[in-house]
């Protein structure tokens, strides 16, 4: 019977690692960074990082949801950009329009993605790739290729505000979104369905889950979050532009994957994604702080993304 007890311990250790391995990784990164440059740990710098990751962080959370269902959403960048354009473009119609417009746009764009994916059974990659092209075109058409300058005064706190004069409001929004979505995923039927669909769509359907509906909602949520990120981006920079989201989809996917989400669907956590986005954010920050030349930055970033993923996956592999 001792073995069984042993086993229990090792299991606890396993779970422990699974949960805290990523935190450990982050901690190591923290220590390394602060050894390399003392500036890193300055509160100002840490708050900067918090701000820098907030927008992409919110997008990554939506992306994580989509990836959990076994899908992918390449259209988040253009949706974000269109959202930002709308904030600036709708300002003359009042702040409600400027705030709600981007959200509705993002939501509808996402629901549309989801609907095409489920109803026509097209691979998410191709639908959202097409959507990426379409929304970019729409954004450029709407703005005629020029930036739309200025956002409503009253909304600007969203992107520029600081709570207690120091903490970026953006970061608070990011954390709130992360917590809300994490709770939904963990404690509601909808969240459970998200995992189930990604794990086995066939079995999910036969268990009475309305797979199509949940999938559509998930893409809608991803779009909504991208639209929301667009509001933050626009109010932060006080401008809307059709290219604001370029390349964001890759960063968001990378954050999710570094955080342990499987692109096959069905496994991953918001917590992991937050860690993933922190790893990316801290890394960029460090490379800038120590003034690594831009070509070398690319090489480093690539290396570290892979290494971080290897490290965070190691415990997982051992237990298999």
């Amino acid at each position, binding site marked *: 019977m001792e073995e069984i007890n042993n086993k229990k311990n090792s299991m606890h250790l396993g779970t422990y690692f699974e949960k805290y391995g990523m935190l450990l990784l982050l901690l190591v990164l923290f220590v390394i960074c602060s050894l390399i440059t003392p500036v890193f740990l300055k509160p100002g710098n840490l708050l900067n990082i918090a701000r*820098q990751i907030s927008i992409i962080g919110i997008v990554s959370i939506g992306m994580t949801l989509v990836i959990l269902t076994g899908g992918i959403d390449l259209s988040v960048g253009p949706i974000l950009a269109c959202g930002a354009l709308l904030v600036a473009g709708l300002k003359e119609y009042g702040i409600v329009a400027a705030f709600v417009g981007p959200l509705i746009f993002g939501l509808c764009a996402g629901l549309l993605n989801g609907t095409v994916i489920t109803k026509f059974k097209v691979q998410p990659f191709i639908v959202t790739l097409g959507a990426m092209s379409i929304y970019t075109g729409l954004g450029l058409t709407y703005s005629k290729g*020029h930036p739309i300058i200025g956002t409503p005064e009253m909304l600007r706190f969203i992107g520029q505000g600081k709570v207690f004069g120091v903490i970026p409001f953006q970061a608070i929004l990011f954390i709130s979104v992360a917590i809300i979505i994490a709770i939904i995923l963990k404690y509601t039927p909808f969240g459970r369905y998200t995992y189930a669909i990604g794990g086995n769509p066939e079995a999910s359907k036969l268990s009475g889950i309305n797979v199509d509906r949940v999938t559509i909602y998930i893409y809608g949520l991803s779009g909504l979050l991208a639209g929301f990120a667009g509001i933050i981006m626009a109010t932060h920079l006080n401008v809307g532009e*059709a290219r604001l989201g370029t390349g964001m989809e890759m960063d968001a996917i990378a954050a999710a994957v570094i955080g342990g989400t499987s692109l096959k669907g069905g496994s991953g956590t918001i917590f992991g994604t937050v860690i993933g986005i922190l790893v990316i954010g801290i890394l960029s920050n460090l490379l800038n*702080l120590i003034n690594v*030349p831009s070509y070398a930055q690319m090489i480093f970033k690539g290396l570290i993304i892979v290494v971080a993923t290897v490290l965070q996956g190691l415990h997982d592999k051992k237990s298999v």
Partner: protein
Amino acid sequence: GGSQDSSSDTEEEQIVIGLSQEGLDHPFMVTQREQIMDAASKYPNVSVIATDGQNSVVKQVAGIEDMLSQGIDLLMVQASKAEGLKQKLTEVHEQGIPFMFVGKPISGTEAVTMVSMDNLDLGHTIGEYIVEVLTDRNGAPKGNIVMLEGIPGDQTSEDRIGGAKEILADYPDIKIIAQVAGEYRRPEAFNVMQDILQANPEGTIDFVYACNGEMALGVIQALKDAGRLGEMPVVGLDGQKEELDAIKAGELMATWLYKPAGYEGFDAAMKILNGEEVEEFIIIPGQRIDAENVDVSEPAF
């Protein structure tokens, strides 16, 4: 002129001009195209067909080929990946179709003319300006400067930054303490500048040079956010409308107009089509805009 298969019995010969631009997602390129279209609209017998390369040399080449299929009398090109197009342009030349550059110069081709500003030259000018400002500021040509490049490897960025560095190379006391990529974009520039500000406390940066307007605006916002606006001079390059506003507000020290060459380019094109002589390089002079002349200046786009 006359495209290969155009019928010649119309009163005035129809002239087709092809316009190939590297992309259309930047106000510079958009404005340039608008200018060319606008200029062409005054000639009923001239039509312009346009393609854009969506920031990929491969797509730009394909676009040129597709325009050749339709038959064009002259090709106007604006490219960042200059070298990549050379081969195709030689072919265009061999087919007897004249081509010219607008907006960005590319040397070493059979182009009839280039109508544009000169990035390398602007880089030099800015280098000299930096020396001047630092001398004013610190009593001698010394100080720490920060440079924001665009997309690493992009020709425009290489020239704008490289030109300045060529000048600065003669001044060993001017140190480039950071040269990072802001991807030509405001949010990236904001983030990068935030990091640089953390690494370099107050009083350690004497100058910031962002090689385009969007990045300069991002830098200013980062300075504002850090409460360090006014601590160091910032210059940009492009002369977009918001930069001029920033100069008026005293946030940006100067910028250089990098004007789209649409109108000038179209004039040159018409000359070529009419068989007139044109210069090999029609340089649109760069113009510095600072607090002194900002009120009387028009933005580049």
